[in-house]
């Protein structure tokens, strides 16, 4: 659970990732470029966030799910 802290809050890197796809669908590579986080970290986190239904995946592009808002703000 690298995307969450012990207290159940999003980690800083997960927040940064979600904020980058709050409005648009982006590929993992585009998210990596936008956030400055390494690509492997983005892919690993997206998998976890997708399992938690916090991101929506369409044609290998990702967008934040509305459910993530409660964790983000």
């Amino acid at each position, binding site marked *: *659970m*690298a*995307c969450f802290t012990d207290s159940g809050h999003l980690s800083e890197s997960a927040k940064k990732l979600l904020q980058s796809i709050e409005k648009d669908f982006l590929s993992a*590579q585009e998210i990596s470029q936008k956030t400055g986080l*390494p*690509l*492997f*970290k983005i*892919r*690993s*986190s997206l*998998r*976890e966030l997708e399992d938690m239904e916090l991101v929506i995946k369409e044609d290998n592009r990702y967008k934040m799910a509305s459910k993530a808002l409660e964790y983000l703000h």
Partner: protein
Amino acid sequence: MSENTNSEVRSLPRIGSKAPQFEAVTTQGTIRLSDYEGSWLVLFSHPADFTPVCTTEFIAFQQIYPELRKLNTELLGLSVDSVSSHISWIRNVKEKFGVKLEFPIIADLNKDVAQLYGMIMPDESTTETSRAVFVIDDKQVIRAIIYYPLTTGRNMDEILRLVKALQTTDENGVATPANWREGDKVLLPTPPNIEVAEERLNDENLECTDWYFCKKQL
């Protein structure tokens, strides 16, 4: 016992073959090898956390990490220790040596990845991984393998030089001579036929000592 243990040892993945896929728990979450597709990766093992040679190596790996990242290359460590042990060691290195280790480390407690990559040398130790380095390219092909024993720390300049040399080869279709450094002349691969061999000897842009030995400046 050693006979049984030895019979279970898998062979090393070979240079030029696809890197064996894995999913592993690391200090930065669950990572799959496929997460690195599109970037190069230096996957390396060390014998154990909280040991002196490994500590010097991890500090040295961290020192070359920014340079590796400029080469689109990531670092991924591994040992047969738990995530808690890795975290504790990372914190200790920060506290005692002032170095923050920023790359993930696999907690390979059940030795899944270590056995997949032949990182354990049972005649040296059955519980610790030796000092293995696998350079994996952006297409997940193993491009180079380095092995050092438990007692001897690796040379980071050589790892950096190796990645640069491999990438230079890919980008320019050339080979690199002994002790090659970035900026040095490179070698042309052996000519495939006599026509090419003769062409090279007449090429003013090449520095040919003989038909099989031509250098050029990139």
